[in-house]
């Protein structure tokens, strides 16, 4: 990987990561790389393995297959647990602690604790420091949990559905806090969600998991530039031959119209209207078509990772 833009260590790298429960595979042969300093959306339908992936990275689960490394270290090593913060979906906090005591927990258990940063996040939401956690609203609790995660001054922040139970106003406000904190410190963020609207204007990197495997991974701008939305009139059943030599992600037809998302392998010729897809269109196309060939761009590929189908000359 001699890409100058992403020189230095990747924040997170998964190699053939697999997790098999008694019920079946939650995650299977999952390989990707997240360069440091990115805000990455981890997208997938419910039950796609997002929480499993984050839990493995947070050293809450041990994978049954493959491995994952955080800044080159295994999860759970002293180094990686100092550099990584994890916020679980249910935002667990001690209900009988006050907000101040919760921040003290962070201070007592983390050598690099930043009390002011944590306090600022709490204060920005007007959360009283002497309030018990059990009396806080969902948004306030998320804010305190986020303060605890940021006060640790992590280099990699793993967030599992951080905004799932918040109303749109609070969601917007907390997302703003998150982004400004991350931008200020250059924190790498890996954030799972199934709300696509959450990702627009937030993420500059994407990893899509579906059916246990990685469908799409890479820089948002690059992914956008590699895809084309094709619209035209439909004349017969099936895909027109003119599009045949491009990689087809998804093809939808209505009465007289055909809409397809393709990865062009050359100039698109024919009576088509071409357009760049937006993020939601791109994600929906991949989520709806589990059989589409996966795409993992060069920056998202691990060292020595060989992807016959997914490799794209960037």
């Amino acid at each position, binding site marked *: 990987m001699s890409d100058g833009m992403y020189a230095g260590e990747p924040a997170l790298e998964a190699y053939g990561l697999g997790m098999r429960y008694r019920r079946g595979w939650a995650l299977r042969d999952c390989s990707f790389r997240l360069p440091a300093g990115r805000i990455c959306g981890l997208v997938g339908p419910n039950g796609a393995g997002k929480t499993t992936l984050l839990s493995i990275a947070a050293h809450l689960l041990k994978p049954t297959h493959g491995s994952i490394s955080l800044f080159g270290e295994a999860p759970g090593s002293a180094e990686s647990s100092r550099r990584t913060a994890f916020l679980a979906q249910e935002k*667990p906090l001690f209900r009988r602690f006050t907000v101040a005591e919760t921040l003290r927990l962070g201070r007592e258990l983390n050598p690099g604790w930043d009390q002011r940063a944590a306090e600022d996040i709490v204060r920005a939401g007007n959360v009283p420091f002497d309030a018990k956690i059990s009396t806080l609203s969902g948004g306030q609790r998320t804010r305190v949990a986020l303060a605890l995660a940021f006060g640790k001054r992590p280099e990699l922040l793993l967030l599992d559905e951080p905004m799932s139970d918040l109303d749109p106003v609070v969601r917007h406000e907390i997302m703003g806090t998150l982004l400004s904190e991350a931008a200020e410190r250059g924190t790498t963020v890996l954030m799972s969600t199934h709300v696509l609207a959450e990702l627009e204007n937030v993420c500059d990197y994407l990893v899509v998991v579906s059916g246990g495997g990685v469908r799409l991974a890479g820089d948002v701008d690059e992914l956008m530039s590699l895809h084309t939305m094709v619209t035209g009139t439909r004349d017969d059943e099936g895909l027109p031959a003119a599009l045949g030599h491009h990689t087809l992600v998804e093809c939808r037809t209505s009465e007289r119209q055909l809409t397809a998302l393709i990865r062009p392998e050359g100039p698109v010729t024919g009576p088509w209207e071409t357009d760049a897809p937006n993020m939601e269109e791109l994600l929906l196309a991949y989520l709806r078509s589990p059989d589409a060939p996966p795409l993992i761009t060069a920056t998202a590929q691990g060292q020595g990772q060989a992807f016959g189908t997914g490799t794209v000359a960037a």
Partner: protein
Amino acid sequence: MSTFTNASNSTDAKNGTMTATSTEDAGRRPRLRAMTWLVWRQHRAAFWTILAAAALSVAWMVYQRGQMTDFLDGYGYPTNSLDEVGNEFQQYLNGLMTVSTGLQAIPVLLGVFLGAPLLAGDLENGTVKLIVSQSMSRTRWLATKLGVTGLVVVVSTVALSAAFGWWWNPVKSEPAVMDWTSSEAFNSTGPVLVALTLLSVFGGAAIGVVLRRTLMAMVVTFGFTMVVQLVWAHFLLSLGNVVTVTTHKGVLAENAAPSLPNSAHQLDQSYLTGSGDLVSWSACADAQTDQALKLCLKKADVVGWSVDYLPMSQMNGMQWFGASIVFALTAGVVAFLFFWCRKRLV
């Protein structure tokens, strides 16, 4: 909010901690740090309740002992035997019995209310994920949690059993007060209470990590601690070395029965035959008359009594032997907990 405005913004870990230390209730009492602070804060209600209850009980036992020794001094014990002391002394003994019954409930109570929720609560509420995502290792978390809990348990049970042993000591040699092999005496003194309570509490914690539900863990732990009590009671007498005393003066004479040391606990009594064999003392119970009995005994060649007993001098040794077995089991439970902590925490 002055506490917070003063806190350090330094990235230097040491500096940050020290500044924070000086801003919060400094000098009031020795401050707990890091994981110890967290464990104490999380379980402080339980810990304070246990320590306060233990302190009150110890104070009450000391007071009761004073009352009892005052009475005994006035009565002239041990010069005057307690055989004819009458009902007046009974009130002091009632206190002793009540407290010993309460002490025996401690392993069950602490196992259910302290041990079972200790780790199950964190697993059920998900707070274990919060702890694990901080910078400190999970092994340290478990070690601190078990260490602080163990310390509270040991301090309170040692104080209670020491106070109880001290209270009982003046009348220790009176089997009429409390038989030393009875669970009231044996389980409430020496190292036994400490050992049984530690096993119950850590066993409850282990049940909690397996079941991962607080309420269910408490119910199962109740069963576990009761089984521990029953098994302990069953094997209690097997902890000693049985002493056998034999006589050869027949079995019918007035002074034929062997004399046992004071407070000895008799286990078994049989007829001894001329060949050295033992015959059940009920072998001639069918004999209707003295004549028939003598004939029966003669026929069986009974020459005297053989009595198995445990002298009271063995009490301490038996308690330590039993307690060391329980401590070893507890160590096994703790080893399992650390293994679990490394292998599958969440």
